[in-house]
């Protein structure tokens, strides 16, 4: 912490705070008093584990000969390990399909709910949000049952037309099965964030636009969407962080989709398997750290390229 204090001088721009030395010292103290407890937790549970993961990832434990320092060998191994690479490729493909889909649906729903004000619209808003209140693992269980050929309604529905039901728990369809679960789970949450942002727009802007001859669609495209761009960026970042570390849903659906979802289906599952099933904490940490690094770099680069005056960071 001392490092932090020395590195950045107090900003002198705030005129109200250009007070005498004693007042300023008091302000420093009070500031740290409020931020301090969180800072301790932050150091102990975020900085320390990150540093420790980095440390662990530089070693390798052998059955004979104990633990030895191997520098970046674990990373070299990870990036040439087909299990890690296929998992990483899966989450990248998955993000490219699932994230735009969720955001488009959430945006469409938010715009509809902002334009339609009826009792049914208010009811719908809550119902669409409901899946967010469901633990992701329970959501996966629910859909797992719905997909299931033994308990699910799909075979009934397709049976009516004399067709066999698609197996969303097998082969290539598991991809879309999971896209559906994730969309169902998160689209409502993103919708609420966008809806709240839309509600924050000053309605006199619409009045002015209408005077200028803008229709519903033009107001949506030229006023609403640009004004909620920061909220869109926020949910995009959330979705990226969440999707790249995909774990809960596939881990749970493994029980129902045996054979389709292996223990190395996503990088996080692979790290979990290495650490907890094979007690290989060094390699597990390396995978976790590599994944965390990729997510961080990816999101940071993304924010850098989309940087605007009013971005959320």
């Amino acid at each position, binding site marked *: 912490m001392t490092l932090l204090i020395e590195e950045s001088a107090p*900003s002198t721009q705030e005129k109200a705070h250009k007070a005498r030395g004693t007042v300023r010292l008091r302000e420093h103290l009070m500031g740290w008093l*409020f931020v301090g407890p969180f800072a301790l937790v932050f150091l102990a549970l975020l900085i320390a584990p990150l540093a420790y993961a980095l440390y662990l990832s530089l070693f390798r434990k052998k059955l004979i000969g104990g633990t030895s320092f191997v520098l970046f060998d674990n990373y070299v191994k990870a990036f040439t390990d087909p299990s890690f690479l296929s998992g990483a490729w899966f989450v990248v493909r998955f993000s490219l399909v699932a994230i735009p889909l969720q955001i488009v649906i959430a945006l469409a729903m938010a715009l509809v709910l902002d334009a339609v004000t*009826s009792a049914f619209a208010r009811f*719908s808003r809550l119902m669409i949000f409901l899946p967010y*209140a469901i633990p992701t693992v329970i959501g996966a269980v629910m859909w797992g049952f719905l997909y299931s050929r033994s308990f699910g309604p799909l075979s009934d529905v397709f049976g009516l037309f004399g067709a066999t039901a698609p197996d969303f728990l097998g082969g290539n369809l598991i991809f879309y099965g999971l896209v559906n679960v994730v969309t169902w789970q998160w689209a409502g949450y993103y919708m609420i964030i966008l809806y709240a942002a839309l509600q924050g727009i000053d309605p006199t802007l619409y009045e002015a636009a209408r005077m200028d001859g803008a229709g519903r669609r033009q107001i949506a495209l030229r006023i609403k969407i640009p004004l909620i761009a920061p*909220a869109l960026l926020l949910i995009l970042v959330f979705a990226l*962080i969440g999707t*790249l570390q995909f*774990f809960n849903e596939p881990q749970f659906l493994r029980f129902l989709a045996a054979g389709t979802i292996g223990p190395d289906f996503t990088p996080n599952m692979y790290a979990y398997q290495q650490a907890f099933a094979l007690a290989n904490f060094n390699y597990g940490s390396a995978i976790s750290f590599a994944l965390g690094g990729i997510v961080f770099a990816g999101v940071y680069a993304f924010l850098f390229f989309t940087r605007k005056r009013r971005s959320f960071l």
Partner: protein
Amino acid sequence: MTTGRSGARRAPQRHLPLQVLLGFLVVYFLVPFWWIIVNSSKDAPGLFGGGNTLWFADRVDYFGNLRQLFTYDGGIYGRWILNSTLYAFAGGIGATILAVMAGYGFAKYRFAGRRLSFSVLLGALMVPATALVIPTFVMFSGLGLTNTIWAVILPSLLNPFGVYLMHVYARDAVPDEILDAARADGAGEVRTFLQVALPLMRPAVVTVLLLSAVASWNNYFLPVAMLSDNRLFPVTVGLGLWQGIASANNAGTTSLWSLIILGALVSVIPLIVAFFTLQRHWRGGLSVGGLR
């Protein structure tokens, strides 16, 4: 948020095609709930005996199933629910207190190291939480904390997004003039915070509390890694355990599947109740994070 806006709106807007579209969406979002409500009324034969999977069986037996759920394996399910409640409350309240204090501190005091600490915090928003599970496990196991309730509660105290949300909210909703007035009237910093600032931040406090509690309740990766004693499991990990057992036994040999279905339904009720009763408060708090 909504109350401030409704005055500005004139007549309610009812666009019929859009309402029909909404109707379809609502059906999609509710289908899994409908399935689980219907099927938790069935016993094992009703579940596997064919029949309509989207409608009730001849025999509707919620009470029998509930009794089975809460007595199976010495009533372990009730324990899981209590554990989840404890983890959600302890983690949620703890994380909220830390976030409210830190957010207020960042927003209202110009202290040394503030800018740097705040950029570190913003960077932390991008650190995936699951990347921390394995090293935290190894650290906690060195401290003898794994397989205790602390292994689940302590990590859920960390909520950088909550701090960010509180910072943005406190910056806008708590004017400096009011704080200065309170100070001029002789209130100390702590009293100013508790009696003047805190009431103004209430929507954001409710939002952060709800989001942290839900995150703890929904947590799966952390407890599944940390805990080995099934009496400490939260309900998510417990249901995972049952699902593993039921799948290994290849469906039907036990009535475990019907317990899992009803168990999933029962486990989501507290969250749904929390969201619905608090919904007027949390939505106002959420809007700020997305606007600035």
